[in-house]
């Protein structure tokens, strides 16, 4: 499938995910998929149809699903637990902590429908706290791909890695950013998607596409922004963050997540300790969100490219 994804093309992450997961189960009989009765939303139905023997329906019961995954992993299987980001990280949080992360069991956790753009389902189904929750758990790896190419590479990594991994996914179509031939996902490594000297936009997941657009808008106004994409939120590339701060002296962190606890917080923690630099966080401003169309949500919750341009100018005015 990655060969079919071209830069600039539109593709939906969940379709890519379903196909890639089917491929993993076909290569490895020990990889099993656990569904919390959302297979036709998360697209694990592709596995249910293509490899039924390795698809285990766990019903609408996330706590048990996570515990079952721990048991499966303990006897040598590799469970991929798939449901919405909001449910997996909150309904099953104690199970993730005690049954999976503390014993460092080989469970892959997929938070589909992360962020705000969840198909008009509103605040109960949107996932804007998942990064904050998951990155606070010892032994947890937290990843957020920008596009389908990167997602496939991430899933390959997760398949090879022995331990808990959380991957946050988006629902809808978006533009492909990375070339499958040249892009290489690496755990703990950030990636400068664009280099510019005036400031750096640090971003992750699907917000990277919007950050690239923000950088383009800034360029029209004579401002050169770097865009540092962070597919690996934990472990996080501290070196790249400090380098960006040192070289550009102003930071905007943008994410489709609450500004509390997410990538913005993680960057602030690092800069606060290692290289204090003027910075601004773009994200949901610690408020309850709602249902609505994608463009309306991005606009109302101030995470559009235009919002990022405004914040970039604000942080530039504080640049020392």
């Amino acid at each position, binding site marked *: 499938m990655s060969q079919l994804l071209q830069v600039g093309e539109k593709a939906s992450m969940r379709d890519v995910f379903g196909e890639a997961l089917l491929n993993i189960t076909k290569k490895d009989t020990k990889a099993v998929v656990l569904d919390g009765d959302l297979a036709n939303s998360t697209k694990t139905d592709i596995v249910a149809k293509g490899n039924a023997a390795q698809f285990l329906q766990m019903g609408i019961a996330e*706590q048990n699903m996570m515990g079952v995954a721990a048991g499966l992993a*303990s006897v040598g299987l590799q469970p991929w637990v798939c449901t919405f980001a909001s449910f997996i990280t909150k309904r099953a949080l104690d199970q993730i902590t005690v049954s999976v992360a*503390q014993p460092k069991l080989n469970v892959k956790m997929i938070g589909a429908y992360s962020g705000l753009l969840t198909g008009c389902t509103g605040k109960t189904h949107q996932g804007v706290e998942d990064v904050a929750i998951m990155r606070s758990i010892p032994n947890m790896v937290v990843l957020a791909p920008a596009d389908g190419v990167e997602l496939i590479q991430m899933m390959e990594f997760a398949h090879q890695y022995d331990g808990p991994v959380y991957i946050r996914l988006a629902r809808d179509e978006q533009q492909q950013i990375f070339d499958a031939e040249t892009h290489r996902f690496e755990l703990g490594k950030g990636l400068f998607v664009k280099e510019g000297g005036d400031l750096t936009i640090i971003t992750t997941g699907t917000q990277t596409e919007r950050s690239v657009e923000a950088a383009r808008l800034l360029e029209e106004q004579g401002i050169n922004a770097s865009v540092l994409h962070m597919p690996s939120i934990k472990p996080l590339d501290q070196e790249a963050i400090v380098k960006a701060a040192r070289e550009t002296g102003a930071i905007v962190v943008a994410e489709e997540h609450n500004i509390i606890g997410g990538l913005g917080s993680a960057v602030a923690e690092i800069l606060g300790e290692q290289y204090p630099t003027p910075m601004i966080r773009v994200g949901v401003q610690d408020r309850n969100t709602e249902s609505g169309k994608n463009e309306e949500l991005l606009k109302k919750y101030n995470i559009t490219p235009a919002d990022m341009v405004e914040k970039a100018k604000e942080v530039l005015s504080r640049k020392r």
Partner: protein
Amino acid sequence: MSAQLDFAEIKQLKQKAAEARRLVVETVHHAGAGHIGGPLSAIDMLVSLYFDVMNINPSDSKWEDRDRFVLSKGHSAIALYTVLAKRGYFPIEELSTFDEINSRLQAHPDMNLLPGLDMSSGSLGQGISAAVGMALGAKQLGKAFYTYCMIGDGESQEGQVWEAADIAVKYKLDNLIVLMDFNQLQQFGWDGTDGRERERPVTSPAERFKAFGWHTISANGHDFQQIIDACNEAKEVKGKPTMIIAETIKGKGVSFMENQYLWHSKIPTAEELKIASQELMAGV
């Protein structure tokens, strides 16, 4: 694993259980922390599993075809530790490190620290799901091992237990055998009726699990023959998991602890330890 245990076999199991109980009381006294009533109600079942029922090899604790055991009521860890130590998984002397900093014997079981632990547990309701996963995993891998699990009756107030109960039946997990330590007391519980000081809610666990589609067996959780018979019966059941409702006495074996909810996690004094040890060893 004869169907009918002879007098000598029963006597041996009794002896081991009495020693394990004495070690529980001694260890909790020494540590100045830990649970005591629940471990004492669970001991006879643990001794039955580790010395008779389960197919295990203490010198190869990671053997992949071994039977599995999950202590879902993880706060009874000290009971499991004493039985594992007696079975040869680690030195009995190490029990004295229970609950101490840097110890492999954590307050609740940590599978990555101590040999013989098949799963970590501690937060209630989770172990039974892991046991369901192990049994499902055995089916998925085409392996013949059995998975045993012990839950508490108090623990079964957790909704996760019933989520697990549902899925175990859906996947026809006849390789899963769960024992409920039905001691009818919990840490605090409810005001008692009919002369009881404290009590559990009225739940009728056997009827409930039966309604969920489980094979259920009621047994005296302090009678070795009954426990072992129940496990043997469970192994013969096809197409569904088995729940053994084992009626037990919280604090079993020590007169002043029996059926006293306050002994859920009270620390015995030196004098109480002495009396408890005498009572426990007098029984064998």
